[in-house]
C-alpha cells in the first residue's frame, strides 16, 4: 500500500531544472532512500514534500491528502529534519524541545513524557541542559532529530542525517531509525553514503541531475547489475604467464565474464560471476584439475556505486566533484531564504 505518491513533480530555480518529472511511490512503514550526488535535487525534493517549496508541476499526496492543497494537515503528519541544522544557540536543548512541542500543540502532560523519552532514546542526558550553541555536530544532529520526532509523525523526512557524524552518533541514529520503522513509521532519507542506504533502505531511488535513474530494492538494483565481483589469486605474488594461463581456464567456464588481470595486485584475476549458477565450486574443480591452488578468493556483491556507475558512466564521487564545481552556493542560500 502506497502512503506517499509523487507524480510528475518538476521544479525549476531560475536557471536550474532541479527536479524533472519525478514519479515515486513510497509504501507505509518502509524506509525509502534517496541516493544522489551533490546537487542532484535531493533537498529540493524533500523540501517540496515538507511543504516548504511549491513545485512548478506535479502532485504529492500523503495519506491521500494533497500536499499543496492542504499543507497544514500534511505538516501534522510529517516530521522534517533539514540538511542545515538550525538551532537557537541561546536555548538549551531541553528548551528547544519544549518550544518545538508547543509548535506542534502537544499537550502539557504528554510533552514532558515525550521529551524525556527522546532524551533517553538518543542518549542526550548529559548535555541536554546545555545551550545549543555549545553542541558538537553529532549532538546538534541528535537534538534536531529529536525535535522532528516529538509529535510522533507518521512520515519522517531526513535530509542527509548522518553527514560528517562520528561513529557513535551515526550508530545511535541508525538504531533509532530501525526501531521507528519497526513501529510502523515511514521514513524518507536522503544520503550520498552508499553503505548507509544499502544498510537501511527498503527501497531506493537513485537521482542525478533532477532525474530518476533507477529505483527499486537495493538488492534488486544490484542484481540487475548481474553477478558477484570476484577477486582470485592462485599465489600471493603470481606472474603474468601464470595468470594468463588461469585466465584461459576461466574463460572456458560459462557464466564468468569481464576477466581482468590486475598486475598491480600481484597479478590477481578480477571477474564477474553469475550468481545463480554454482560457479565457485565449478571453478575450484577446474583449477584443481589443472593443478592450480587457490591462495585467496574474495567474493563481493556489487555495490550501489557499481549500479550508479553503470547507469551514468560516472562514479558517485566524480559526479559529486562535477556538480560541486557548478553550484553557486551564495546565490542559493539567498534564494532559499523565505
Amino acid at each position, binding site marked *: 500500500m502506497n502512503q506517499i505518491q509523487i507524480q510528475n513533480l518538476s521544479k525549476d530555480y531560475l536557471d536550474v531544472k532541479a527536479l524533472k518529472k519525478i514519479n515515486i511511490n513510497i509504501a507505509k512503514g518502509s524506509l525509502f532512500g534517496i541516493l544522489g550526488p551533490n546537487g542532484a535535487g535531493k533537498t529540493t525534493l524533500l523540501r517540496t514534500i515538507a511543504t516548504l517549496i511549491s513545485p512548478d508541476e506535479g502532485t504529492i499526496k500523503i495519506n491521500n491528502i494533497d500536499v499543496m492543497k492542504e499543507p497544514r494537515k500534511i505538516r501534522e503528519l510529517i516530521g522534517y529534519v*533539514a540538511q542545515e541544522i538550525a538551532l537557537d544557540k541561546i536555548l538549551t536543548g531541553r528548551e528547544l524541545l519544549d*518550544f518545538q512541542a*508547543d*509548535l506542534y500543540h502537544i499537550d502539557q502532560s504528554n510533552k514532558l513524557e515525550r521529551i524525556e523519552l527522546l532524551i533517553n532514546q538518543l542518549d542526550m542526558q548529559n548535555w541536554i541542559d546545555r545551550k545549543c550553541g555549545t553542541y558538537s555536530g553529532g549532538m546538534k544532529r541528535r537534538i534536531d532529530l529529536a525535535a522532528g520526532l516529538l509529535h510522533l509523525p507518521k512520515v519522517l523526512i531526513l535530509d542527509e542525517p548522518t553527514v560528517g557524524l562520528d561513529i557513535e552518533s551515526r550508530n545511535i541514529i541508525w538504531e533509532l531509525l530501525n526501531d521507528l520503522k519497526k513501529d510502523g513509521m515511514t521514513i524518507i532519507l536522503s544520503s550520498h553514503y552508499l553503505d548507509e542506504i544499502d544498510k537501511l533502505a527498503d527501497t531506493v531511488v537513485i537521482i542525478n541531475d533532477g532525474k530518476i535513474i533507477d529505483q527499486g530494492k537495493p538488492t534488486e538494483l544490484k542484481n540487475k547489475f548481474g553477478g558477484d565481483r570476484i577477486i582470485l589469486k592462485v599465489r600471493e605474488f603470481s606472474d603474468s604467464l601464470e595468470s594468463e594461463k588461469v585466465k584461459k581456464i576461466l574463460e572456458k567456464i560459462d557464466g564468468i565474464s569481464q576477466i581482468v588481470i590486475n598486475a598491480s595486485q600481484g597479478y590477481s584475476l578480477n571477474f564477474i560471476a553469475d550468481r545463480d549458477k554454482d560457479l565457485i565450486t565449478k571453478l575450484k574443480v577446474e583449477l584443481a584439475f589443472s593443478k592450480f591452488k587457490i591462495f585467496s578468493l574474495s567474493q563481493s556483491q556489487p555495490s550501489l556505486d557499481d549500479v550508479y556507475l553503470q547507469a551514468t558512466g560516472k562514479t558517485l564521487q566524480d559526479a559529486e566533484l562535477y556538480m560541486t564545481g557548478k553550484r553557486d552556493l551564495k546565490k542559493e542560500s539567498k534564494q532559499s*531564504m*523565505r
Partner: protein
Amino acid sequence: MEIQQYNFIFLYQETTALTKRLFIQLKRRPSTFFAGILQPIIWLFLFGALFANAPKDFLPGVDSYGNFLGAGLIVFTAFSGALNSGLPLMFDREFGFLNRLLVAPLASRLSIVLSSFFYITILSFVQSLAIMFISFLLGYGFPDLYGLGVVFATLILLVLFVTSISLCLAFVLPGHIELIALIFVVNLPLLFASTALAPISFMPTWLGWFASFNPLTFAIEPIRIAYSSNFNLDLIALNAPYGDLTCRDCISLLFLLTILSLVIIRPLLNKKLT
C-alpha cells in the same frame, strides 16, 4: 465550532512559546535591553546639562529642558525597540530557524507576528517605566494614573505601527545587513525631525511641516501633556502649521496610522507566510 475553539487554544500555545523564546533570549543577552534604557538617560542628562542655563521662558509650559525632553525620550525608546523588532525574525530567516516554524502545523502563522508584538510592547513598557522613574528621581515629575494610561495607550499604538513595518522589512529585505542599515538611516533623523528635542516654533517652516506629519510627534505630544497636572484629552497638544491638534487628535491619528499599516502589511505577510 469545536475546531475553532481548538484553533484558539493552539494559537495561544504557539504564540506563548514564540514569545517565551524571545524572552529567554532577552534574559540571556540583556545588553541591548539595558542599553535601551541607558541611552535615553544619558541623553536626558547631557541635553539637560546643555540647556541648563537657557532663559527661564525658553520653553513655554515647562520649567526646564529636561522636563521637556522626557516625553521625547520615552517615545524614542519605544520607537527604537519596535524598529529593531524585525531583526530576530531576519536572523531566523537567515539561519533557517524560520523553516522550523514554517513546517510546523501552526494554527496561524500570525502567531509569529503576534509574539513579536507582545514582546516589544512589554519590553518598551518596562524600559519606559524605568526611564520615567529615573527622570522622576532627577526631578522631572511623574504623570498621574490617568496620564499613565495615556502614556501606555500611546506607546502601544506606536509600537504596533512600527513593529508591523519592521517585521515586513524583515521579510522583504535580502538580509540583516540591509535591515540594520535601514534602521540606522531612519532612527535618529526621525527623532530629530520630530518635536522630541524642540517644539515646532523653533523649527524652520519646512521642518515644522515635516515634524507635524511625523508619527513620533503624534506620540510625543500626548505623553508630554500627560505629564502636566491637569491632563485632559482636549488640551491642545500641537500647533501644527495646518492647524492645532488636541491630544485626542494626535492619538486618533496614531490609531489611524496603525490600522492603515496593519491593513497594508497583511497581504504581504500572508504571502510570505503561506
